[in-house]
């Protein structure tokens, strides 16, 4: 990894990042001095046993959680120095999330769910409407725009979530087991969507998954055990 030093600064840099839950006896080191660089345009899969800290790592990268110790530079900015509101701006302008549980607003149409990040971006109504419709079309759900999440299948809900992540026009998409609730065929569909985004639009994607099948869509694979990165390399060689 020595060759990384003379390359331009990575988009995401974790230096000795630890995330500790609880104190004393009950202390859990979800992340234990993790060092990790992710460049713009990479498609990274994170794998590892349950409880190894994959979600925690993703949440720290996504500024949904704050590390207990260490330095996290996003695009050259020390995240630890940001206020909660500034971290919100960072999420708003650079990051898009896809969760295993979709996390869509209930009783709210697909279109309105996708519009949500755009509202906070301060986009006007018509512009927002067009952008959200466009994002839904990209995931093949234009015809379901006015359905509530409860009226959509799991795969469709996850595609709405992807559209929502895309709509904000982020640099990075962070996906935590995006196919965890879906069958193989639907999973493959979702992965193809993500792969296309990475390929065609140069989006950086960091994805946690349990399934080797899904990890194969990524170029780089990180293997975590007990809050540490155990292996890190090209998917083809690591897996």
């Amino acid at each position, binding site marked *: 990894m020595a060759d990384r030093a003379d390359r331009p600064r990575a988009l995401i840099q974790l230096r000795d990042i630890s995330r500790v839950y609880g104190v004393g006896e009950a202390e859990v080191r979800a992340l234990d001095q993790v060092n990790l660089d992710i460049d713009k345009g990479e498609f990274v899969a994170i794998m590892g046993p349950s409880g190894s800290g994959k979600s925690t790592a993703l*949440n720290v990268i*996504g500024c*949904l*959680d*704050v590390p207990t110790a260490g330095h996290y530079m996003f695009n050259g900015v020390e995240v630890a120095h940001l206020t*909660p*509101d500034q971290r*919100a*701006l960072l*999420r*708003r*302008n650079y*990051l898009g*999330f896809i*969760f295993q549980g979709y*996390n*869509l*607003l*209930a*009783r*709210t149409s697909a279109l*309105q769910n996708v519009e*949500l*990040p755009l*509202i*906070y*971006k*301060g986009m006007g109504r018509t512009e927002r409407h067009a952008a959200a419709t466009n994002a839904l079309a990209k995931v093949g759900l234009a015809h379901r725009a006015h359905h509530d999440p409860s009226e959509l299948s799991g795969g469709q809900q996850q595609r709405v979530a992807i559209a*929502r992540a895309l709509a*904000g026009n982020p640099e990075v998409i962070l996906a935590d087991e995006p196919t965890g609730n879906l069958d193989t065929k639907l999973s493959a569909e979702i992965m193809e969507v993500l792969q296309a985004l990475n390929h065609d639009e140069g989006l950086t994607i960091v994805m946690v998954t349990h399934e080797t099948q899904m990890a194969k869509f990524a170029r780089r694979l990180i293997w975590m055990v007990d809050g540490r990165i155990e292996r890190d390399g090209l998917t083809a060689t690591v897996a």
Partner: protein
Amino acid sequence: MFLETIRLAVQAIFRNALRSFLTVLGIVIGVGAVIAMVTVGQGSTAQVTADVEKLGTNMLMVLPGQDAMERGPAGTSMHLFTIRMNDLMEEQLSVIDVSAPMSMGRARAVFGNENRRTDIVGTDNRYFTAAQWDIARGRIFDVTELQAGKPVCVIGETVRKDLFGTSDPIGEELRIQSLSCEIIGLLKSKGASTFGSDQDDFVIIPIRTFHRRIAGNTDVAMFIVSVRDGADTERAKTDVEAVMRDIRRIGRGEEDDFTVMDMKQLATMLSGITGVLTGLLSAVAAVSLLVGGIGIMNIMLVSVTERTREIGIRLAVGAQARQVLLQFLVEAIILSLFGGLIGIVVGLGVGLLGANMLSVPFSPDPQIVLLAFAFSAAVGVVFGYFPARRAARMNPIDALRRE
């Protein structure tokens, strides 16, 4: 952005229609109950005052004893009055028009198969003047009937309606306990008093008849005094007190063993009672306000999990805590305003209905309206806002994970 916030808040209100409805309902119940009850209570008080004023300011009542406790139930006082005292007092005071001695009891009045428990008043003709009763049919007592304590009576409209229906009561025999008396007159109806008590529900007989045939003693419960037109009631009251002290041989420095009440005092006393009533109603209203508040609190707390996740989602897509909070605040304010306004309309409506039913004036109190509104609005806003504030201060991931 502010318009956008309002739009978001309205969206959230409609998205959670049931929760919104229940919140509004809680506020409506709280605000409505308070306004309705206080409106009716204060209407009653106003009515009592008005009624008493209508009775005439030139009427005095003289009662034995110093206060209601001492007087006890009619006729049990230790400082009894007699007819002679009444006549002496009337004689000595030119400021008095008439003064009527009066005794009362309750008994069953029977005619044929019909009977009714009613008030029996023993008095003489001066009572009709002093208490302003007019004769609808027949006549009042004549001198021999009064002197000899003959078995004759004048009845109130309610007694007539109940016992005689459509037939003519004049000349019929009414039985009261062992007394069988001839009905010689019928009073013109005065209708219900403020408290809903029926003023026409009584039978008047000569006081001597009452003493001999009903009471078995010669006690007089009170004097009803009518002050001459144009005379100063306050002055008349002082005069009556002085003369009564004389008649009852109360020495210097000793306290009165009787009470002279004018209508202003009576009004104060009665509005004291309605004041207690208003107090009770207000207590009930306060409870409903509280219940409404607890209802709102419950709904808000029950939905905290869902709302916490909603806040987590909004934070994750880039909302700042204060943007989310502003939305929740606007949402709570809209619901509270809406509920409060409906509550005011409902409360005033029910108050109007209640006032009509009790035939008291409709007198809403703007201060109470404001107070009830402010309280409910505060409950709505506090319980809508503070759980949201806690959620918005969490790490977004903790808000998202909330089960």
